[in-house]
């Protein structure tokens, strides 16, 4: 029994060390989008300085969609922050439990799915991936987010 418990703890430690949590997945998706926008902006500025304004126009990547998605996520996060701080503490305590967690989860879900759909579109267009591959990957992300939302509502983590 003791051995089993030790093994179980070791497995949990290993899982904690190697698995990415849903929170990190969300943040990483947004950071990757920011990285993409930054590197293309860097190339655009470099091209302008050397008389080549279309240096980063490849015809394969629509960076405007990434920029729009990141801006929308930033705007949504600000709105939720304002809603969180503007309410009376006695009202917001109950409201958080009833409404806010579900709303925050919807925000996270929409943002991450949007970013990953954009990423998969780019990769699919460029490498000619069939729709079923990107569909399966998107489904995995959706399932992960559903369980993450369930955990958020259930435990608040």
């Amino acid at each position, binding site marked *: 029994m003791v051995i089993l418990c030790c093994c179980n703890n070791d497995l949990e430690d290993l899982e904690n060390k190697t698995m990415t949590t849903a929170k990190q997945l969300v943040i990483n998706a947004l950071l990757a989008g920011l*990285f993409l926008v930054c590197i293309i902006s860097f190339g655009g500025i470099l091209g302008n300085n050397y008389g*080549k304004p279309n240096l980063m126009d490849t015809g394969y990547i629509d960076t405007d969609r990434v920029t729009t998605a990141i801006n929308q996520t930033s705007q949504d996060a600000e709105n939720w922050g304002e809603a969180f701080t503007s309410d009376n503490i006695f009202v917001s305590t109950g409201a958080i439990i009833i409404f806010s967690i579900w709303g925050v989860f919807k925000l996270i879900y929409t943002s991450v799915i949007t970013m990953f759909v954009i990423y998969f579109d780019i990769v699919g267009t460029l490498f000619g991936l069939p729709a079923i591959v990107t569909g399966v990957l998107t489904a995995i992300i959706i399932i992960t987010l559903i369980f993450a939302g369930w955990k958020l509502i259930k435990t608040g983590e």
Partner: protein
Amino acid sequence: MAYVELTTYNITGPQVLFCYANDITLGIAMYMFYVSVFLIMAFSITEYQRRSTGYTDFSVGFGVASFTTLVLGILFRLIDCGTNPLTSNLALAVLIVLAMIGIIFLLNDRGR
């Protein structure tokens, strides 16, 4: 059709070596150059990690190599090189996607 020789090539400067090789191979030379730079950097970083720390974290090598290759591709795209640019549209898009995959891989991998 006669081959265009390096001595009769109408570009001066050190970039003529890349431009000449890229033109006569219809763009394949630069693809191979980027692939080789990426692989050499990724595996050399991984091997250096193994020798210095005893374990490897391939995501770091992959991320650094993809980012460096992308910056190299952007800089090479600035060079005027006749008909075929040193970094074609397809090559640049692939390098950008590779860097994006690298950063996602690096951020989501928690290492050892």
